């Protein structure tokens, strides 16, 4: 009989702060973390909508460690500490030697890459910073978490753009369920709001422009006036634990991870397909062993692009048939933005908290639904959901990688 997997702790370094419960309340109330920010040099600057994290390494990371850590790693370590603390595993008499680390990360030390190019092309020096390579590598956040807490299980990094941390959590879930590991810090980290990265994202035409009602109104998934997403940053880590191990410690789980499914569109680098998304959701449901009608809430991938949102709606209808109009589906990117490599982890954490609280966070700014988007998107206002048992989280990435998690209330 395969093992059950619980989420026993959460650590947040997000645009809504570091306390998961406070962040959930703000997200539930539809409070946006989007701000208009001046990004770039004096000559090439641009005003961009971003969901930044208020995180200064100077206050949080010892000086000598700062030298070796890009921002994504710094936030990852702080989020991991939050997860351990929240799971009552920090400074306790529990042997964490075998704990694994499965992290999602889209890019890595983005701001360090930028500095290196500056040294090479502008200062015209081949002699850049010696620590550049280990600071830039995408697996650095996972490594730093492992080093900081003495975790000697495998430290893996999944780089699948927007689906990175959903896959990380899913793969960690499988590894625990299949008995390879007992405990895992699973999540994601991304800090890609440096000038060069933001300029690159702008060029794709997927980044939101400011709505007439201001920055907070600009991320509008499913709404007729949506113009794209708001780039965010952050790190979110979940403690996943095998059920018996968690029970033995007497810890109260937050939610259970029930299933995981993944697929590829095999279609296009930036355009999604409903067929591919359907495949991932169906696989996740089969893995979870629950009927489709049991799903009460989906945290959508929906980023607020004109093209992407209706494809997910179509996919949900294909999967759920008549039940699609009975379940609730919201995109919390409407308030926290798109954390790319960390988005799956933040959204899975939100689903876990929603199950625990029996409350559904809204899709903020959804005042005029697109006719092509005609499901119950929990528009504008969150609501209670006393019967909520099973929920789903979707991440559909550039490159056509799709990943879905199914969670259950405990």
């Amino acid at each position, binding site marked *: 009989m395969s093992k059950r997997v619980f989420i026993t702790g959460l650590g947040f370094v997000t645009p809504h702060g570091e306390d998961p419960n406070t962040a959930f309340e703000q997200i539930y109330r539809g409070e946006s973390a989007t701000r208009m920010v001046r990004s770039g040099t004096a000559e090439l600057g641009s005003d961009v909508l971003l969901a930044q994290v208020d995180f200064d390494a100077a206050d949080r990371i*010892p*000086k*000598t460690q700062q*030298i070796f850590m890009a921002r994504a790693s710094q936030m990852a370590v702080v989020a991991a500490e939050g997860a351990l603390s929240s799971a009552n595993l920090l400074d306790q008499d529990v042997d964490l030697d075998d704990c694994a680390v499965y992290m999602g990360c889209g890019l890595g030390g983005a701001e360090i890459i930028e500095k290196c190019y500056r040294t090479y092309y502008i200062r015209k020096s081949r*002699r850049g910073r*010696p*620590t550049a390579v280990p600071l830039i590598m995408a697996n650095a956040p996972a490594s730093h978490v492992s080093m900081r807490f003495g975790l000697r299980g495998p430290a893996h990094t999944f780089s699948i753009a927007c689906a990175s941390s959903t896959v990380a959590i899913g793969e960690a879930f499988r590894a625990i369920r299949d008995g390879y590991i007992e405990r895992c810090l699973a999540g994601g980290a991304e800090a890609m709001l440096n000038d060069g990265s933001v300029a690159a994202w702008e060029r794709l035409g997927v980044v939101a422009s400011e709505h007439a009602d201001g920055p907070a109104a600009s991320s509008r998934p499913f709404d007729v006036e949506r113009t794209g997403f708001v780039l965010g940053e952050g790190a979110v880590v979940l403690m996943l634990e095998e059920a018996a191990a968690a029970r033995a410690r007497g810890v109260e789980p937050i939610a259970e991870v029930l299933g995981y499914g993944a697929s590829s569109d095999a279609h296009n680098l930036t355009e999604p397909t409903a067929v591919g998304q359907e495949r991932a959701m169906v696989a996740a449901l089969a893995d979870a062993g629950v009927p489709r009608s049991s799903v009460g809430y989906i945290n959508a991938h929906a980023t607020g692009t004109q093209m992407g949102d209706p494809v997910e709606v179509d996919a949900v209808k294909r999967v759920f048939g008549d039940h699609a109009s009975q379940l609730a589906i919201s995109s919390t990117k409407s308030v926290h933005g798109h954390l790319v490599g960390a988005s799956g982890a933040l959204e899975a954490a939100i689903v876990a908290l929603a199950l625990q609280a029996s409350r559904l966070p809204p899709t903020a700014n959804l005042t005029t639904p697109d006719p092509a988007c005609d499901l119950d998107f929990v528009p504008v206002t969150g609501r209670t959901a006393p019967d909520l048992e099973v929920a789903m989280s979707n991440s559909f990435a550039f490159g056509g990688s799709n990943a879905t998690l199914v969670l259950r209330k405990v």
Partner: protein
Amino acid sequence: MSAYSHLAEVLAEKYDVAPDKIRPEATFSDLGLDSIMVVEFLFDLEDEFDIEVPEEQAEFETLGEAAALIDELVKAKGG
């Protein structure tokens, strides 16, 4: 103008070395810097003084010797 005082400042500020440990005769090991940190430290100095420390010349044991080398390179540059 001695580079020593600047080196001492960077060690205290960026590398968190306790001021009482910073002495000319201290080795980098005494100061708590491992090999990759020493390389990084050299990079900071090259950056600050706009010099290059050729590999053959980067053979100093103590802080005092490192400072002397920097002084020499800065002087050779005409700075």
